[in-house]
């Protein structure tokens, strides 16, 4: 018995010391790890996870943003507007067919948009007045308002799905999909993994596709890895060739290692701290208290603590990647860390020692961020408790400013106006804006920017300055996005997505 034990032990130790890591098989498949794989293939989905790297391969859309943030025609051939962005005429390409052979025509495009309006999963469809077919390949889109970015968003979110194929599906494409995309989804396992393969019978030549979505890889395999450490392990053991947007602490490990290529890009959302606008909250109508909190936050330390230095301070509430961002803001002061000033402002405010609550998601870095913020505010003499809640709670309460005093969030959008519309428009929700605030002064400033000719530097500046001065929201920091891949897959000719990080299926590889 004793002998057996020792032999076994020796064997394990020996193997642990001399084992080697397996190389990734060269099978022509690009394996990509991402934190989320969708739970269904339906083309009608809410905004959650909208910027995942795979949606442009699952479905084609009418238009697509290239990395220069210019809308390129995709399934649409062209469009024009005669009345300053209220009515658009869109013409589709000829000969579009989905993988079941059904032609995609104006009927289908109109149906898709109408269906999206009815399902109301994306708020942008709420801005559509009407959509009508005007010919086999043309339709007319009437908008309720000409807010900048609306038409572009509708074009990028309306997919090449034919009504016939959709209606033939028993579960509304829950588990299998027929789309016009050059990729066919094969082997879909909900919330786990899926494979996409280039199909032979794609309706046009690949060369005719917009360069930002022109496939180069014959077979892609996306796999969901929720555990941060498992993401790194999957990369090292060759389970995947590439990890998209890995947590910073994991991604950092591969920097400087020649076996891996690490790409760091500016985050496209950033982290924001929103102050409740409900009258029940001590921060709602106390500008000084809000400013005190902003001054108490040491952004550099925050970036150090949460992103290990791999992030940048925000000079606006929102991410510098958004259209409308003005680099000149970077020369202005944005509540630099100043504890003395914070304490002074607290003293001048109406704060009487109440415990303020921070609501945040219980997942990812959010609870850690809340703890650091709590520590900062405590130093300024402000009592804080954390409510790190599950997603369902947050979704149910995020617009109700009576349920929190502060709320950490990360807001996306291609245009600054997109982010503003969902956060600060006092008429956006029945409760007011995103925090139950009813600030019509800000509202009017916002509406000024909501027309193509109104989206000017001057008007945008006004909103920026108002937000900063009133401090109803505060940009915490912008973490870098980390993508890492094995250098031996020979990635060349990098193509970028609108979010400014690599778009893997459109790059070229020499060693897959």
């Amino acid at each position, binding site marked *: *018995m004793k002998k057996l034990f020792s032999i076994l032990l020796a064997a394990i130790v020996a*193997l*642990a010391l001399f*084992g*080697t*890591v*397996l190389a990734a098989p060269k099978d022509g498949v690009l394996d990509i790890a991402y934190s989320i794989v969708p*739970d*269904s293939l*339906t083309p009608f989905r*809410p*905004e*959650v996870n909208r910027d995942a790297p795979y949606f442009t391969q699952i479905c084609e859309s009418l238009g697509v943003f290239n990395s220069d943030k210019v809308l390129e025609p995709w399934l649409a051939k062209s469009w024009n507007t005669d009345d300053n962005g209220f009515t658009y005429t869109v013409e589709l390409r000829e000969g579009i067919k989905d993988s079941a052979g059904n032609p995609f025509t104006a009927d289908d495009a109109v149906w898709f948009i109408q269906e999206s309006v009815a*399902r*109301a*999963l*994306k*708020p942008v469809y*709420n801005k559509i007045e009407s959509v009508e077919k005007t010919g086999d390949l043309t339709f007319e889109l009437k908008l309720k308002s000409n807010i900048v970015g609306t038409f572009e968003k509708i074009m990028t979110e309306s997919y090449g799905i034919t009504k016939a194929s959709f209606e033939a599906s*028993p*579960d*509304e494409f*829950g*588990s299998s999909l027929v789309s016009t995309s050059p990729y066919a989804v094969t082997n879909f*396992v*909900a*919330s*786990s*993994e899926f494979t996409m393969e280039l199909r032979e019978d794609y309706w046009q030549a690949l060369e005719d596709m917009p360069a930002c979505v022109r496939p180069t890889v014959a077979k892609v395999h996306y*796999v*969901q*890895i*929720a*555990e941060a*450490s*498992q993401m790194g*392990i*999957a990369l*090292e*053991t060759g*389970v995947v060739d590439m990890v998209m947007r890995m947590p910073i602490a994991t991604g950092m490990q591969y920097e400087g290692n020649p076996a891996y290529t690490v790409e760091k890009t500016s985050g496209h959302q950033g982290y924001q701290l929103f102050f409740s606008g409900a009258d029940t909250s001590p921060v709602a109508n106390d500008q000084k208290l809000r400013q005190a909190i902003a001054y108490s936050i040491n952004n550099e330390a925050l970036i150090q603590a949460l992103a290990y230095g791999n992030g940048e301070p925000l000079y606006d509430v929102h991410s510098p990647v958004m259209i409308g961002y003005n680099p000149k803001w970077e020369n202005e002061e944005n509540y630099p860390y100043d504890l003395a000033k914070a304490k002074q402002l607290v003293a001048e405010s109406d704060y009487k020692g109440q415990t303020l609550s921070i609501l945040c998601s219980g997942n990812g870095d959010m609870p850690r961020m809340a703890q650091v913020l709590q520590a900062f505010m405590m130093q300024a003499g402000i009592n804080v408790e954390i409510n790190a809640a*599950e*997603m*369902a*709670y*947050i*979704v*149910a309460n*995020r617009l109700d400013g009576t349920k929190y005093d502060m709320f950490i969030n990360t807001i996306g959008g291609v245009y600054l106006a997109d982010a503003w519309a*969902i956060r600060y428009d006092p008429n956006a*929700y*029945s409760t007011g804006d995103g925090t139950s605030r009813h600030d019509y002064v800000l509202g009017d400033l916002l509406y000024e920017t909501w027309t193509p000719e109104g989206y000017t530097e001057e008007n945008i500046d006004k909103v920026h300055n108002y937000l900063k001065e009133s401090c109803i929201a505060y940009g915490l920091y912008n973490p870098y996005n980390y993508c890492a891949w094995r250098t031996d897959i020979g990635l060349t000719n990098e193509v970028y997505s609108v979010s400014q990080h690599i778009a893997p299926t459109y790059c070229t590889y020499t060693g897959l």
Partner: protein
Amino acid sequence: MIRYVLKRILWMIPIVLGVAILVFTLMTFCPGNPAEIILGSTATEDALLAKTEELGLNDPFLVRLGNYLVDVFIKRDLGASWATNVSIMTSIGERLPRTLTLTLVTLFLAFGLGIPLGIVAATHQNQWQDSLSMVFALIGVAIPNFWLGLMFVLLFSVRLGWLPSMGISDGLKSYILPAATAMMGAFATCARQTRSSMLEVIRSDYITTARSKGVPERDVIVKHALKNGLIPIITMFGSTFGHMLGGMMIIETVFAIPGMGTYIITAVNNRDYPVVQGGTIFLAITFSLCMLIVDLLYAAVDPRIKAQYEGQNKKKIKKEAEA
């Protein structure tokens, strides 16, 4: 015997009905409007109202419960997921086999290692083998699962490259690490249970008799002691199986296995009521079937129990078996 089995199966109906009612009721108390979660954080007011109506969430509780029970027990349809529209039966059909495989591999490892270790400990009572085995077993219970799992991955996948670190694409091989992680608790309990029941049997008269007749020690242990000492282990096997089936969510998350655990947990987070309900009902049925099989195995091993099942006072036996 057949009558007994039939009766037990019939008994499952009220239990499953109870499970359905209980889970349904609990889910309605969950904070958060499912319609809001399905539509996402930027849905409009009107869309929310329409969705709430569509999901039947405006109906009184009893009406909803009634409708659900009719769907499940009369139409025998668990419905479709609110989040994905995919039939729940289809999803369970895909996911249950994975969790089942994981559970079976886990139990195989736990009992395959636990029983011999328990026997070694019992036959060497109070010697170093005994202490070592029991310390080993206790450490197994004490180490948090996901920590151990990641350690295993670092050693066997990263360092040695023997086993896949995650996923299920390598067949049975993919299940070894997750199972080795998940088994620790059951392994320890099994080793300890085997040890104590073996000790009890070894001390009993008939073993002494066997020994005094000159039966070789090896045969005494294998033929006599083991057979009787195993009865409590079988009960344990059944209940562990049931527990594991629904308790694999952490292992499934760490090892990225799309099984029942992650299915239910995602559904709880999404307030996807039909999935939580359907999944739990399914697990409850599996669990009850397991317990039935255990009781039958019990009878197969122990003729006394078999006689009781076939005899008159079945009810009492059942209670005792449960206890």
